[in-house]
Structure formats: structure tokens, C-alpha cells
């Protein structure tokens, strides 16, 4: 079971500011341990995919992502999910405040 995630989404005059935290070891090849890192991050706004990101081992442990989405009103559903190289995943959903 993947560790917790936390997200905040706030509407700010035409854009939505999203900040999401993920619990993940993000183990690199350098550590001598088996590689274990998040590969894909998907962001959905009211069920529609708005961001599909591929990230690498270069991202830190317990990563934080912050970004702005065009549009978005209070109450919109924002969903962020990640998938790692071992096939583990986690999802969080929140309403825009």
C-alpha cells in the first residue's frame, strides 16, 4: 500500500493553483538498491486528462508538484495519480477551493 498523498487546489482569477505531495522513496540506481521511482503522473480536471507527465529518477524522495491549470472554478474535481516502475500507484482527488 502506497503512503499518503496530500493536495490543495485553489482558484485564483482564471487559473487553478494545484499543489500535490506524494509519499514515495524514489530510489535511484546510485543507491545500490533496486530502482523504484514514479514514472507517470496524470492530472485530471472533472474527469478529463489535462496533464500527462513522465518523470525520472532525478526527482527527489517524497516529491512535491506545484502547477497552474487554465480555468477551473470552485468545486471542480481535480484528480492526480502516479504510477511507478513497479506498477504501484496512488490517486488523490480534491475539489477546487
Amino acid at each position: 500500500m502506497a503512503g499518503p498523498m496530500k493536495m490543495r487546489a485553489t482558484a485564483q482569477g482564471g487559473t487553478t493553483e494545484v499543489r500535490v505531495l506524494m509519499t514515495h522513496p524514489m530510489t535511484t540506481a546510485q543507491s545500490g538498491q533496486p530502482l523504484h521511482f514514479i514514472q507517470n503522473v496524470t492530472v485530471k480536471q472533472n474527469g478529463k486528462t489535462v496533464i500527462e507527465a513522465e518523470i525520472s529518477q532525478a526527482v527527489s524522495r517524497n516529491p512535491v508538484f506545484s502547477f497552474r491549470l487554465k480555468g477551473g472554478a470552485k468545486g471542480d474535481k481535480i484528480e492526480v495519480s502516479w504510477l511507478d516502475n513497479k506498477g504501484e500507484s496512488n490517486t488523490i482527488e480534491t475539489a477546487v477551493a
Partner: protein
Amino acid sequence: MTRFFGTIVILGLTAIPAAAQDTKKEIQKYQQMIAEGSPVELFELEGETLWKKPQGPHNVSLEKCDLGQGAGVLKGAYARLPRYFKDADRVMDLETRLLHCMTTLQGRSRDEATKRVFGNENQPSEMEYLSAYIAGQSRGVKLAAGHTHPKEKAAYELGKALFFHRAGGWDMSCASCHGEDNKRIRMQELPVLHKPQAARPIMATWPAYRVSNSQFKTMQWRINDCYRQMRYPEPKFASEATIALITYLTVTAAGEPYRGPGTKR
């Protein structure tokens, strides 16, 4: 000739602080950047889960633990620690009190509960998660460690004495590093912790997440590691000495609104 010499001295004095000011600004910028990307809230979430998880021979959670504001009251509890607890007849900091609740409420043995008080990046400890959660419930509350009961006053005095007491392999005291203005080690400024204006921002942001090793660090760890750095024998977890130092530092920082858990380089 004398006047000319005076001008040179004044120029020299103004040039040095300007450079130091730039360095300070850059360090502040860096600290702000790491704070923005801090995963501290994830530790708070895990801590909340642990707080509510039934454990030990009695199979109960810590939710009935009295941190000084009544059983189970978390709001503002951290900001008022360390303090004297009548039921244990001693001054306790957060971790000592948690240990007390683990042994009394949950019926766990001290050995089992302290088996792993400091974690690592792959597996943080129970104390670290719980500290993050409980400290987070004091955001905005002014620091007000106990300083009225005779045992609280005694702890403060002992902490103060320890702060200035030189010993160990390198004949150092806390004040050897934290006793002079404008000193730093690489990026890390060394606050003069016996002065309230320096102790305030520090005590208001501990416990804290440390970016350089991806670990959450507690106050007991902070004191323990300072003693390691000074090459002293390792202090015992939740000992009179570590509690006294935490009491001394927190009383010195009294009045500062708590804004942790913080994020350190």
C-alpha cells in the same frame, strides 16, 4: 593623516556587512525554496494515523493521552511543552510524554517503545511521525513552556547550566557553537541560542524535516546529535539532561508563535 586613516576604516566597515548581507539573503531565498517543496504534511498524515491506531498489550490508541491540556487535547499542546506533569512527577517534553502514554495507556514496555526512536530515510520512527502530527496542531500558538512549578524552574536552570558546561573529548559546550553572533558552518547559521531573539525562530520551527537526508527530525534527536557532534557519551532518550536543555531553549523562545514543523537544509 589621522582623518585619512579614519575614512579607510569606515569604508572597510561598510564593505564587509554588505557582502554578508548578500550571503544572508541568498541563504534565506534557498530556505524559502525548500520550505515550499516540503513534504512535512505527509509526515503529519502518517502521525495522525499512528495516533489513532490501537497498539500494545492494551490494544488502545494514544487518543486518550494527556499532553498537558487534558486527555486527547492536541490543539496548542506542543507549544506548552515541556511542562511539569503531576501524574509522573517530572517535567516532560513531547517525546517523553508520548513514551509515558505508550507505557501507561498502551501497556507497552519502555524497552519496546524506545527500541527505535530515531528512524532513517527508508523507515521513519513512530516518535518522528507522532511529533510531526502533534507539533502541527500548535501552528499559530505562542510558545509557552512551563516555567512556574519548582521542577520546571529546576529543569530550566539545569538546562542553562548544561548549555554552558564544557566537557567531552573536545572540551565543548553548546555555547561553543551557539554562543557568539554571526557564526555559521557552510550554509547553516549558528543561532546564539541563549538570546531570545535567536532562540525564537529556531524553537518555533522544530521538529523539522531535513531536506539533505529526507528525514524528519525531533527535538530529542536534535539534542542527541549535538552531543554526538561534541563527542560526548550519547545521552539517554527522554533523560533529565535532554529534557532540561529542551526546557531551557523553549522557555528562552517564549512568546514566539509556533510555525512548524519546519524544513531545514
